[in-house]
């Protein structure tokens, strides 16, 4: 009996590695030539880079200054507070990974893998202990989270609380012996980069939404203010705003009140990002069909409820990709703080390079900094794709 059509497998040349190569890379003589040219190009770029990275690069500039890269001028005997902050974050990630699952679980796994990898690297010091402690806390949080399935809202609230707890922990109190005050001018490195980015993201998000709604308001005063704000801020380079907040913010504050550089920089990033945020959100607001608003009004919902329950949830969902890419560029733009004398990651890099024993090691330092930025930017971008898929963006 001949093989029936139902049981007939695909031809062996169209599946597997060979099939894939043939279909995608060598489907015609022209594509074959392109493939070979690309392989040659990739090889000629990557191989010197790898040879450099593993033979002639002097990574000691990174390992010996690792504390500086991570925390900058933060007092070395107080660095345990930064580690404690990381422990809080690990605990929250562990709990969230099991409570929410999905993308956060993926991140939790990456974080655990990252801790393990870093702990295995030969850095020495008590860093390894802290890293393993973080790994343990992450796993413990995950296990604890399995019993907290019903407490989702509380976990979200805990994230908010931990954000402020983190600020208090890092800042401390003046006169305290346990948590002596460490002014933000002593924050630095990746820690400062993170604090600038996180604070600016958390604050610019609601501010941007308010501005977007204000721009569509029927009240002329609010509308004009919003338009003026958005257009003025968008018409000025970020560097200018950074300098302006350094000089002008003190003018608006009462006599004797001093705001340090970091807070001024945070204000600049927040105000700048909020304007772009507002325009992104406005794009989403405009895309909501009029029928949605009419249906909600016909049910008797007032304007505030229509905005809160019908318009904003749909509008924000639509602009997630734009918002995340805005946050990614904000994260990278924090490097500009280096020009107002803040020692964030790039600033630390430059000060390390100024030391005589590390002269001429720019490549190592900048590659390291670029790699750090890439890892976190890619993580945000990855989260955005997963979030889009989970919320069904583009499906109605």
């Amino acid at each position: 009996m001949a093989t029936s059509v139902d049981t007939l497998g695909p031809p062996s040349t169209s599946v597997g590695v060979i099939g894939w190569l043939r279909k995608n890379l060598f489907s015609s003589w022209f594509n074959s030539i392109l493939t070979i040219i690309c392989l040659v190009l990739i090889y000629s770029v990557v191989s010197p880079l790898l040879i450099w990275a593993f033979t002639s690069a002097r990574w000691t500039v990174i390992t010996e200054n690792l504390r500086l890269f991570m925390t900058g001028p933060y007092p070395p005997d107080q660095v345990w507070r930064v580690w404690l902050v990381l422990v809080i974050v690990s605990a929250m990630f562990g709990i969230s990974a099991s409570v929410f699952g999905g993308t956060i679980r993926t991140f939790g796994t990456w974080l655990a893998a990252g801790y393990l990898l870093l702990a295995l690297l030969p850095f020495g010091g008590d860093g390894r202990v802290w890293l393993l402690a973080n790994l343990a806390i992450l796993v413990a949080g995950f296990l604890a989270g399995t019993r907290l399935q019903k407490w989702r809202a509380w976990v979200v609230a805990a994230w908010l609380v931990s954000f402020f707890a983190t600020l208090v922990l890092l800042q401390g109190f003046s006169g305290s012996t346990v948590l002596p005050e460490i002014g933000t001018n002593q924050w630095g490195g990746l820690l400062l980069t993170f604090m600038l980015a996180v604070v600016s993201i958390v604050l610019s998000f609601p501010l941007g939404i308010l501005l977007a709604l204000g721009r569509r308001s029927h009240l002329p005063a609010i509308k004009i203010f919003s338009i003026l704000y958005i257009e003025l801020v968008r018409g000025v380079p970020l560097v200018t705003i950074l300098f302006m907040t350094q000089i002008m913010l003190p003018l608006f504050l009462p006599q004797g009140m001093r705001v340090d550089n970091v807070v001024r920089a945070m204000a600049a990033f927040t105000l700048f990002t909020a304007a772009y945020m507002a325009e992104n959100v406005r794009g989403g607001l405009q895309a909501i069909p009029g029928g949605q608003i009419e249906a909600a009004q016909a049910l008797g919902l007032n304007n505030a409820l229509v905005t809160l329950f019908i318009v904003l949830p749909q509008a924000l969902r639509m602009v997630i990709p734009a918002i995340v890419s805005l946050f990614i560029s904000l994260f990278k733009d924090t490097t500009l703080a280096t020009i107002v004398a803040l020692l964030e990651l790039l600033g630390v890099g430059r000060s390390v390079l100024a030391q005589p024993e590390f002269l001429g090691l720019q490549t190592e330092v900048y590659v390291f900094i670029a790699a750090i930025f890439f890892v976190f930017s890619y993580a945000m971008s990855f989260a955005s794709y997963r979030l889009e898929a989970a919320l069904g963006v583009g499906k109605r």
Partner: protein
Amino acid sequence: MSSDVKDIIICKDVHKWFDRLHVLKGISLTVKTGEVIVVFGPSGSGKSTFIRTINRLEEHQRGTIIVDGIELTNDIRNIAAIRQEIGMVFQSFNLFPHLTVMQNITLAPMWVRHWSQEKSEQIAHDLLKRVGIPEQADKFPAQLSGGQQQRVAIARALAMQPKIMLFDEPTSALDPEMIKEVLDVMTELAKSGMTMIVVTHEMGFARNVADRMVFFDGGEIIEQGTPEQIFKNPQHDRTKLFLSQILH
């Protein structure tokens, strides 16, 4: 109860302009409690605009509209009070795509009527049973067929326990095989004594269910009467012409 005979909607000389375009030219219509009115007429005749003025989705610029004893003015409290008493069903359903069927139905009862979640969900379950889709409560609108979506939209409007229901061409966007399931729900609703104004071209529905038919053309009411009068003995040439075009 006296409300059995009350005039629940009174429109007197209602005018409406879109910029310079005069779309409603002095509409006067009184609807009694429990009456089912079918509004029909060519597209662009102002029939949709007219029923949208009744719950103030469109503002009228001259004349008076009094719904359930409350006059529609710019007073936001009056508008809110009237909208709670009027349910509306749209041609394109306008369900909220980010909310489940259950959330679509319970949103207004919980936030406008301030009923408890249990009460609102109980009402929603009963209504979903009434419109024949009790098993779809946890789905999202996009997972339902057009006919099912429109029935959810009817349930959503009914959940506010309105005194009046407006239907703006509720079956025009539906595939032919789904029209009947929506009309059946509307027929049942009419039989239950709901006051309804229905803009539709479903003449079978009008013949069976309507107490009165109103023919719109060019922003005016040309003719009105019982289905019997309208179908058997239309008075105006324009009514005759329109009926001959849609009835073949």
